[in-house]
């Protein structure tokens, strides 16, 4: 089992880093047709598509910032958490040597780079044991530029007239998108969590980035919020790379979590256009790769 896990996780990293999922590429292609021909925005999107094709053909990371590697792993009782974690660390180190990942773990006090992309809290591994046999695994590679422009608001926010209701949520999200400008490598995808505490808010918002861009929340209210936020984000006309243009955001994925009476957090996990993820299911020792997550049902977990 150890060998299968190691090789499967390494292949997941390679795919995520070098091969943009078809739903994301399709959204960029549609965006490039929507921009004015000959504009800087259209030119930038054209280069992105060219880059995606080159990265895929040459099996090279499409972005040099291979980001924080975040794993969601559901494992059966007969595969221990220790075995799974060890395989993730092996695959991470191996991926650095092969040039699929950049050594991205820096000691925050000494400034020293660990050299192999592992360190305290890196990579991030969410483990959940399940009663069934077989495993399901998601990995997300999310770069620093878009992590830096992600944000969390505590409602009410009087500066923008945002109360503790869905209209307040809408205003708070738009404020974060406007503040980001092009710095998160627009056009971005945003995961939004309504409620939760400060930690689960970020965790659930980030997890929404695993959803196919073409789906919508099964919750009718959240589905409407997703549509409204997509339309209004694009009315900001920040455009690809912040050059100005019609496409600022490619998709909005919203989820809700219960909150304390005293707290009303709204959390946005901003992903750059380069939304890199890979999904696998391992049954009877055989991995099956997919363009969509085996773990995440549309609209939440």
């Amino acid at each position: 089992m150890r060998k299968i896990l190691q090789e499967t996780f390494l292949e997941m990293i390679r795919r995520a880093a070098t091969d943009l999922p078809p739903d994301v590429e399709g959204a960029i292609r549609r965006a490039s047709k929507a921009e004015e021909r000959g504009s800087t925005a259209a030119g930038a999107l054209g280069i992105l598509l060219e880059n995606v094709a080159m990265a895929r053909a040459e099996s090279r990371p499409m972005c040099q910032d291979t980001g924080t590697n975040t794993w969601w792993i559901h494992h059966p009782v007969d595969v221990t958490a220790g075995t799974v974690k060890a395989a993730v660390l092996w695959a991470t180190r191996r991926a650095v040597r092969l040039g699929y990942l950049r050594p991205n773990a820096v000691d925050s006090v000494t400034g020293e780079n660990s050299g192999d992309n592992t360190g305290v809290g890196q990579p991030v591994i969410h483990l959940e044991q399940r009663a069934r046999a077989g495993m399901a695994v998601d990995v997300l590679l999310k770069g620093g530029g878009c992590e830096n422009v992600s944000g969390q608001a505590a409602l009410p926010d009087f500066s923008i007239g945002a109360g503790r209701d869905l209209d307040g949520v809408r205003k708070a999200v738009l404020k974060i998108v406007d503040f980001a400008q092009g710095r998160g490598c627009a056009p971005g995808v945003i995961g939004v969590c309504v409620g939760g505490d400060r930690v689960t808010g970020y965790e659930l918002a980030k997890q929404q980035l695993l959803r196919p861009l073409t789906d919508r929340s099964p919750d009718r209210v959240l589905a409407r919020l997703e549509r409204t936020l997509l339309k209004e984000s694009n009315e900001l006309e920040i455009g690809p790379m912040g050059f100005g243009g019609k496409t600022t955001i490619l998709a909005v994925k919203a989820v809700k979590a219960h909150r304390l009476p005293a707290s009303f957090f709204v959390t946005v996990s901003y992903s750059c256009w380069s939304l890199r993820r890979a999904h696998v299911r391992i049954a009877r020792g055989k991995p099956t790769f997919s363009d969509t997550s085996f773990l995440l049902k549309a609209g939440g977990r």
Partner: protein
Amino acid sequence: MKHIDIPVDEKTIRGLGVGDEVALHGVIVLARDAAHKLMIEKRPDFIRPHLTGGVIYHCGPIMLEKKGVWSVVSAGPTTSIREEPYEGTVIAEYGVRAVIGKGGMGPKTLAALKQQGAVYLHAVGGAAVYLAGFVRSVPGVYMLDELGIPEAFWLFEVDGFPAIVTMDARGRSLHVKVDRASSRAFDALIGK
């Protein structure tokens, strides 16, 4: 498309305006967060010859070494605004003529560009394989052991490296323009 040979003189740079597409030829210097802090705190001389009339690239690349020769795997721009506290001083201290990055920079850098005669060039963020294709060789690297691969001062010899002028030496910035317009749209959307 305007072709720029590095090192470049002040007159050529002052002739560029926001929106111009450029192709760079020559040796550029990769410097990001740790390198900028170092340039301000220690003012090192080892990098001076490469920066006089030269170009800084905000980039932390993926590099592979085979038999002592480094090759570039992926090398797109990183977000420039983090260097805002340093960049104006670095430009003046070292006589830098262009800074390549993404996302644009702030008022302090914009003022330095105008005063010193320099421009900010925007490369397409995330297009790291595409952009690595314009690197012909890696003639050197400084502080690799101390700063690690993503933060070291790499020298890249580039041929036709593409970028767009988004902040020029006349005090104009595309980023200020887009930010103002989006702020107006935002105010309308929240009913301000």
